[in-house]
């Protein structure tokens, strides 16, 4: 357990010791800031039933930033260690493979959380300035941020898996970006294809991050996406662990 925290500590520090993290953080905040502005501007155009929280989490800018930043967070996790050779000292220390995988993954989740935390400030500032509530109750906040974390956890696990498969960070980023995008648009399949059977529509609805977020940011709780994202996260991490272990036999 202590070894795990040593690893986790080092992985988290690795993010913040590199300039890349700060650059990503900067531009990401720029993007979410603009997204917030766009959401409020849209609401200003006329009466609407949508809350500010809902507007923020359901724009194109939101999804664009959300999906784009994930591969950037995870691409370095394993690929960088393979490339630089630091995997050798790491794996000749008395550590378990599972500890390494989990530490890397949780560090990515931590960075993801740090990326999104400042957005809470937008709502606080909004309320301060306008004296209008961004959402009528705590539900939409909790729903939106929990869903953000759930979807993020699954997509980060995909990125983790991609990074474990290659020594090239760009390849890892492209792989995870493609898979995440495909999954995301699977949920939108019924919008593209007209002849969708109800069964297929129901199936693709499971993948629809868009719908999950739309519901959660309105304060609705649905246990299906929770189970869906958590189980797929575990499964993907399990795959990552095996891919990571298999590198020994491949070399």
């Amino acid at each position: 357990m202590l070894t795990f925290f040593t690893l986790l500590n080092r992985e988290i520090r690795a993010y913040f010791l590199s300039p890349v993290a700060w650059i990503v953080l900067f531009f990401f905040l720029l993007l979410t800031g603009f997204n917030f502005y766009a959401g409020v501007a849209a609401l200003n155009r006329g009466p609407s039933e949508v809350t500010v929280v809902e507007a923020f989490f359901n724009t194109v800018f939101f999804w664009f930033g959300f999906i784009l930043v994930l591969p950037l967070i995870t691409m370095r996790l394993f690929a960088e260690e393979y490339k630089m050779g630091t995997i050798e000292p790491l794996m000749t220390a008395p550590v378990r493979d599972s500890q390494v995988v989990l530490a890397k993954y949780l560090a990515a989740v931590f960075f993801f959380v740090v990326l999104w935390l400042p957005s809470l400030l937008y709502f606080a500032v909004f309320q301060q300035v306008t004296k209008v509530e961004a959402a009528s109750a705590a539900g939409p906040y909790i729903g939106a941020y929990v869903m953000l974390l759930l979807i993020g956890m699954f997509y980060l696990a995909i990125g983790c898996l991609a990074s474990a498969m290659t020594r090239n960070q760009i390849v890892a980023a492209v792989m995870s970006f493609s898979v995440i995008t495909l999954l995301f648009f699977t949920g939108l399949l019924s919008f593209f294809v007209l002849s969708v059977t109800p069964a297929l529509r129901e199936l693709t609805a499971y993948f629809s991050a868009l719908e999950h977020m739309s519901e959660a940011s309105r304060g609705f709780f649905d246990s299906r996406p929770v189970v869906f994202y958590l189980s797929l996260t575990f499964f993907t991490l399990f795959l990552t662990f095996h891919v990571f272990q298999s590198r020994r036999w491949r070399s």
Partner: protein
Amino acid sequence: MIKVEGLTKKYAGITAVQDLNFEVQKGEIVGFLGPNGAGKSTTMRILSCFLPATSGRASVAGFDVASQSREVRSRVGYMPENVALYPEMRVQEYLEYRAALKGVRGRRNRQRVNAVKELCNLRDVEQKLIGALSKGYRQRVGLADALLHDPDLLILDEPTIGLDPNQIRQVRQLIKDLGKRHTILLSTHILTEVEMTCTRVLIINKGRIAASDTPEALAGRVRTAGGIRAEIRADAADLQAALSSLPGVRKVEVTPLEDGWQGCLLRTDAGHDPRAAIAGLTAGRRWPLRELGQEQVSLERVFAEITQAGEI
């Protein structure tokens, strides 16, 4: 300390190590010698649990490298051939992290980090970013890392590569000192290094052990093939006959030089040194003698002969 039985490693069709057998006893400093691509690094990587063997067994301190890998890893200090470090960390920070990773925590962490910094002369750079260090310092950080948990066995893959002559001397001295308390397996293709630091040499060639002996004994084995050089003024035929009759002399070559001097080259059997006898002979017959010496045979020669012609 190390026991290797029938170790074989194949990479995608290429056999890097084939049926390797050797043992290293506690307290030995063993030099692992071989040309590039002979399988040194592969063997060391297997022993440090970085790579699995294709077949065969290897154990360190009684623990199997495959099934008890973490037990082995906590007893081995491994310094890879290319010391890879996290460039964004500071030396002090890196060493503290590595020590913690190896289970050295709390007060002992500080003690060990200080101790290895002292040993490897890293005091001056402890606050520097690793990315800004010279190659020599990085090597030393790698060595310090290997020493952090005070391991029973040190596996050093070409520890002096890329160092300047002064640093090489320091590192060799350090290895010698470490050998008093640790068992060391080090690889190199610099032969003087082995002569200076090791108590035993394993020569590996094409994935097999080609020779195993003390550096002196190995050099001795070839010194016989080396021989004695002398320049004497005498009649060529007399000289040939006289020198050939000396005990231990296998072959004499006499080549005429200027002014009646003859250049002689003697091949001797192992363990025979006829230099004193030659001096006595020339004095007795009143032949002028102007040069007498042993051909310097370095391990270089041993190495060349063993790796090119197989077992001598």
